[in-house]
């Protein structure tokens, strides 16, 4: 770009602009654009020419149409004349007139069409034809009218002459018109043909020129572009060869500023960079070499066949061999055969094997002093060098021995721990170890079973939160006391919900610091023992009381019998005297009351289970319900037994137990209003202690119990009923208790009372 002296700023700008204009890419793009433009222009011109041809052809076809229309008019005139002439000799006026009229109509239509066709493209000459057509459009009908009239008056001769002369003249007019239009068609055709030929010539020349121009342009551009590219490329190739030889000083000549020249510049920069890198590499290599040679570890380079190609100077210290004894030797001649040695051999064969670059492997060396040295080898493949392996060895003989001892110790410890754990778990008494804040640290299987929760939930859980019930709360309290005082504590507690009694012992653990503050809590289930003690005590009391009551009742009955006999005799004698009647009645009533009381007392004092046997509970209920049937009917109360037939069995004195139920039913019926219902229901039930029970309820719709009476209804001699002994429910309770069961009374929410007995069921509950 030879320009005026540029300033510093403009130079930069010029170079930029120059760069854009001089790039090979831009020039190639411009070339292709030029070629395409040329081709497009050529095609457009050709298309334009074809368009002209098309238009001319269209015009020609229009002229043809016109010619045809005019020709038809001419033919009409000729036909008119010929047809009418043939009819003249015939002499039939009507037929002649009809023919003339029909021709006239056809003719008029054809003329109109011809005029329309001609008017489509107006021109002076065509207008003259239009005018002619307009005239003969009037003239032929005139002729038709004339000849028709002549025919009507019988002047056939005149008709003939008219057709011969005037109408013939008319056909000459149309004939000349046809000539004119045909001449026009011919001219039009000739001109169109000429035009088409001209267009063809033009199109051929255009395409030829465009093609030639395109070819020349393409060739010129291709040559220019190629020369601009190939020459600098040759210089670049030379430079690259120099680089390959290691001649980093070689520079490629740069001239111009296109892409290839840019490449040359970049090449030169690259060569310089390479030179710098080479120097850096050499320095780095020296550095690492000195590092390796002074390292305490042993470093070797192995060839593919296992030969030692390089060994670091620490060889003497680690292997006990001199450098020269080792170089060139097979590495396996120093190593004992082992799995790891085979791995190393595999790595030599397959450098990509997992051994390489992964975990260190331990190999055993034979030291010249006869000892075995364990060396840890880290194998890595030498980058970029194919099959060469770098092996980094470290003497780990001492470490290996220490590891071995540690493993043995750990094994012994684990055994001891396992034994202790099994022992701990096999103890059936729940044992827990807790630490500050009474959190569970450890507990045995029995303790876990008691909570019903898995170990992982329990460890770390505060004792108080394991279960709100006992014995955990008590255990918590004890554990806190122990951790405060560091002395053992003992306590007992009864869990009312489960009905179990616990004996708790807590003591501090003394020992190393890790366990300091820990407390051991041992819980013993003493429920059964307590129950046995209670049962024994109660049995003794009841038995003693029953014996006493029965004895008293027996002793009282005999005098009562005597009084009764004397009262009978007295009544026999003085019963008819009115003065004694009232007294006798009074005595008799009191006497009956005493007898009843005595019978009840005897009954109360009688042993509960004289004849225990395993009996189906529903059968017993049915017996009691039957016994109450007549009372229910009398009282007009419905007695419903809804005890399922498949309910379990109980060990019981059937007669006594039926008496219990009968007593309850009678009470219910007596307190029920007329028409009410008394319902007996029963079900199996699993208790918290693992035993199974039968629960049976008698429900009525009576007034229920007064709230103040409820705590006292089972006390002997407590009654609200006139004439009652107050022993009925006491006897019932005694019988139930003697069967190991319980009895309760309550008021139903919907009204009425409910009495519920609960007795042990035999056999396991099948659910």
């Amino acid at each position: 770009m030879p320009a005026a002296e540029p300033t510093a700023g403009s130079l930069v700008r010029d170079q930029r602009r120059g760069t854009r204009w001089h790039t090979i890419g831009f020039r190639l793009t411009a070339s292709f654009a030029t070629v395409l433009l040329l081709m497009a222009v050529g095609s457009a011109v050709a298309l334009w020419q074809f368009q002209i041809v098309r238009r001319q052809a269209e015009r020609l076809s229009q002229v043809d149409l016109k010619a045809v229309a005019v020709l038809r008019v001419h033919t009409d005139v000729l036909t008119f004349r010929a047809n009418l002439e043939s009819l003249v000799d015939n002499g039939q006026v009507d037929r002649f007139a009809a023919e003339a009229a029909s021709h006239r109509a056809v003719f008029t239509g054809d003329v109109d069409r011809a005029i329309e066709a001609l008017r489509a493209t107006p021109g002076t000459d065509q207008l003259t034809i239009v005018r002619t057509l307009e005239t003969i459009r009037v003239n032929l009908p005139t002729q038709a009218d004339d000849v028709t009239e002549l025919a009507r008056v019988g002047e056939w001769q005149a008709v003939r002459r008219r057709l011969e002369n005037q109408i013939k003249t008319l056909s000459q007019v149309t004939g000349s018109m046809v000539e004119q239009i045909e001449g026009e068609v011919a001219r039009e055709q000739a001109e169109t043909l000429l035009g088409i030929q001209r267009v063809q010539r033009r199109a051929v020349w255009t395409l030829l020129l465009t093609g030639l121009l395109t070819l020349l342009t393409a060739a010129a551009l291709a040559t220019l572009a190629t020369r601009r590219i190939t020459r600098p490329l040759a210089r670049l190739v030379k430079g690259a060869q120099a680089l390959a030889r290691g001649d980093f000083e070689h520079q490629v000549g740069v001239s111009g500023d296109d892409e290839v020249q840019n490449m040359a510049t970049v090449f030169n920069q690259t060569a310089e960079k390479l030179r710098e890198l080479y120097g850096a590499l050499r320095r780095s290599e020296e550095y690492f070499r000195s590092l390796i040679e002074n390292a305490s570890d042993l470093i070797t380079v192995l060839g593919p066949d296992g030969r030692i190609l390089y060994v670091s100077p620490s060889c003497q210290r680690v292997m006990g061999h001199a450098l020269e004894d080792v170089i060139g030797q097979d590495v396996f001649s120093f190593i004992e055969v082992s799995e790891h040695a085979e791995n190393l051999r595999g790595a030599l064969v397959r450098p990509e094997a997992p051994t390489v670059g992964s975990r260190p492997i331990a190999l055993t060396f034979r030291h010249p002093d006869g000892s075995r040295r364990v060396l840890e080898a880290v194998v890595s493949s030498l980058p970029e060098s194919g099959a060469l392996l770098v092996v980094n060895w470290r003497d780990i003989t001492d470490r290996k021995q220490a590891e071995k001892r540690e493993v043995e110790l750990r094994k012994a410890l684990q055994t001891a721990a396992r034994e202790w754990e099994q022992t701990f778990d096999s103890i059936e008494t729940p044992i827990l170890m807790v630490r500050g804040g009474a959190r569970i640290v450890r507990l045995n299987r029995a303790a876990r079973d008691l909570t019903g929760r898995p170990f992982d939930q329990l460890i770390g859980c505060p004792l108080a939160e394991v279960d709100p019930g006992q014995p955990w709360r008590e255990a918590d309290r004890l554990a806190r006391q122990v951790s405060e005082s560091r002395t053992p504590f003992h306590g007992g507690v009864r869990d009312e919900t489960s009905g179990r009694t616990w004996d708790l012992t807590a003591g501090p653990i003394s020992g190393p610091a890790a366990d300091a503050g820990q407390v051991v809590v041992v819980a013993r289930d003493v429920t059964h023992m307590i129950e046995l003690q209670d049962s024994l005590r109660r049995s003794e009391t009841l038995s003693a009381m029953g014996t006493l009551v029965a004895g008293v009742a027996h002793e009282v009955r005999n005098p009562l019998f005597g009084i009764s006999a004397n009262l009978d005799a007295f009544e026999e004698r003085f019963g008819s005297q009115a003065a004694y009647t009232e007294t006798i009645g009074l005595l008799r009533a009191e006497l009956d009351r005493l007898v009843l009381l005595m019978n009840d007392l005897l009954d109360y004092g009688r042993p509960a289970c004289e004849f225990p046997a395993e009996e189906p509970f529903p059968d017993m209920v049915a017996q009691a319900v039957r016994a109450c049937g007549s009372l229910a009917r009398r009282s007009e109360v419905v007695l419903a037994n809804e005890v399922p037939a498949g309910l379990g069995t109980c060990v019981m004195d059937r007669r006594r137990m039926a008496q219990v139920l009968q007593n309850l039913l009678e009470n219910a019926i007596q307190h029920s209003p007329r028409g009410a219902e008394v319902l007996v229901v029963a079900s199996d039930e699993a208790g918290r202690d693992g035993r199974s029970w039968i629960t049976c309820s008698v429900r009525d719709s009576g007034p229920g119990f007064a709230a103040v009476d409820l705590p006292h209804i089972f006390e002997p001699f407590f009654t609200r009923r006139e004439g009652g002994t107050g022993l009925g429910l006491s006897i019932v309770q005694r019988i139930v208790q003697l069967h190991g069961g319980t009895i309760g009374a309550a008021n139903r929410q919907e009204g009425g009372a409910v009495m519920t007995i609960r007795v042990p069921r035999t056999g396991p509950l099948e659910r």
Partner: protein
Amino acid sequence: MAVLLAGTSCTPRAEDARRPQTLSAVMLGYSLSQSRRLLNASLTRYTQATGIPVRFLPAPQRKPERLEQYLAWLEAGAATPDIYQSDITEIGRLAEHMIDLRPYLGQEAQEQIPAVMAHYVIGGRLVAMPLYTDVGVLLYRTDLAAQAGYAGPPKTWDELEKMAARIQQRQRTAGNEAFWGFSWPGRAEDDLLCFALELQAAHGAGGIIEADGTISVRNPRTEQALLRARRWIGTISPRGVTAYAAADAGNLWYSGNAAFFRTWPHAYAISQEASSPIRGKVGMAALPSGGAGHFGTLGGWQLSVSKHSPHPREAAALVRALIGRDEQQVRAVQLSGLPPRLDLYEDPEILEANPYFHDVRDILLQGAVPRPTVVAGRAYQDVAAAYITAVHSVLTGQAEPQPALAALEQQIQRLLAARQSHAGR
């Protein structure tokens, strides 16, 4: 023609725009071969001189349709045709659509017969130039008249009737059953008007409407004239002559089957054509007298240039080329067209071809009856139609002369009154 085609495909240059691509003229005689020859010769000369091609167009043959067609073109402002040929009775209606020719043909106008030219100066404008003039004449068969012992043409209608009857009788006897004594245009159109007008005038009944406005149709002489003509039908003229247009009357004559023929002078030239069977056997004379003298209806044809012509100068030049003295001379020789220049009636060449031109000139100058175009003005076409209808109805026997003519008089009065009130407004 090349110019025309070029004109449709590219814009003409300035001088081309001024020069007409082609001129066109409506020419009535063009349908006749001899007339066409003559016209073509004139045109060739014109085209050679100016380089302007010319096209001739035919015109509707019957008068009302022709006028209607002309008016349709002119009122539509049609640029084609440039030149119109019209009848002397039509120029009054067309005048307003024609240019004033005085700037182009003032000199030529001076050379024509003033009486003829009087028809073409309307409102002070020269709206047309005469192509040839016309007057009603009688053609007769000299051979047959001589055979029947007559030395010349009949002087009176009575004579004509006798001669015609006699010649006809002779021809029929000779076996020519198609022969008739007198051929004339009896069809209800313009030629019948011309013939009836001549007949009426010859009987001293006047010219339909006189120059002072007097209506002269309802009189015994007119009745007499019409009754005479009615007598001819079926006797000396064909029974269907009332359906004969001028062409049919001519056809009968030219075929040699008529002794007398009422026509215009150009029929003489046609009769004398080489192919004519009556060539050399034809004489031309004034129409016979009915007691009041020899009369012939004044006709004539003229050329006008349309106001809508894009090239009035060239069109006027073409008119000049067609009506020049030489052209008129040739037309008189070849077509026996009456020249509107008096000097040509002494032209030896013309007199050689038309030995009777002196007689015709006399009729033209003394016995020419004009149709009442001037006095009737715009009502003329209606008056003419009414007259033709009345005459035709008398001839066909549909009406008697007296009541028919009385009715005609009233009708003409109404038409004139309507025209005047129309004009007054």
